[in-house]
């Protein structure tokens, strides 16, 4: 099976669907990374506040 992406034998419809799937996956990964960092940021801020107060 030819796995080359520039294999133009794929139909336009198949290529558009593949585009949206890859875009969706990248958006999901980005959202996951962002909310993890955001959660960590808030946690660290809270700890620093507690540390200052203590």
């Amino acid at each position, binding site marked *: 099976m030819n*796995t*080359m*992406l*520039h294999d*133009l034998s794929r139909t336009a419809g198949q*290529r558009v669907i*593949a*585009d*949206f799937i*890859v*875009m969706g996956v*990248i*958006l999901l990964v*980005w*959202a996951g990374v*962002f909310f993890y*960092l*955001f959660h*960590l*940021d808030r946690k*660290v801020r809270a*700890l*620093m506040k507690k*540390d200052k107060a203590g």
Partner: protein
Amino acid sequence: MVWQFLLFVWMSLVIVAGFLYAPLAEKLYEMTRIIYFHIPMAWVAVLAFLVSTVFSIRYLVTRSWVDDARAAISAKLGLLFAVLATVSGAIFAKAMWGAFWNWDPRETSVLLLLLIYGAYLTLRSAVEGEDKRARLAAVYNIIAFVTVPFLVFVVPRLYFSLHPDPLLNAQGRLEMHPRMLQVFLASLAGFTVLYFWIFDLSWRVARLKRKQEEAP
């Protein structure tokens, strides 16, 4: 907090624009999209190594643990982004050239870079004694960064490479469709902000850990 959500929206728009707004480059077809992730990751890696070196130089002047910790954090982030750039490059290689790894000059030079900075982290974990570790790591880090311009910008241009022309080609021209350039620059800015955010976050965690360790 507001800027963080702006970054989220910004990068989400970059991802969508990369697929729906920017045209495909000639010969790259769908793999064009990797430009908006692979190059910014490589850029952030170089930036992180540079920041790390600046803190290592500062450490040798100030002898403060703050500079040593910041140098280590930035080197770790540089290594992380270099790994991500290598992985995304390997995906590109598989799609365009048929194999994940081809020992292309650019692949080989980035592998050397990974080994050099991997050794920096190994050195840090192998040396006991905070001052000795910080001093040795700072000197090694400065020497390590000397190799970065050669491995990233010079060596891959000296030999025949399958890698597409860099953004600024051999003639010093910037050949990119205006829409692609817009998305690319937006991605570059987004990744840079993301790096500084993670750097700051890691630094605050390191400071908290240090305070806990020093607490009686």
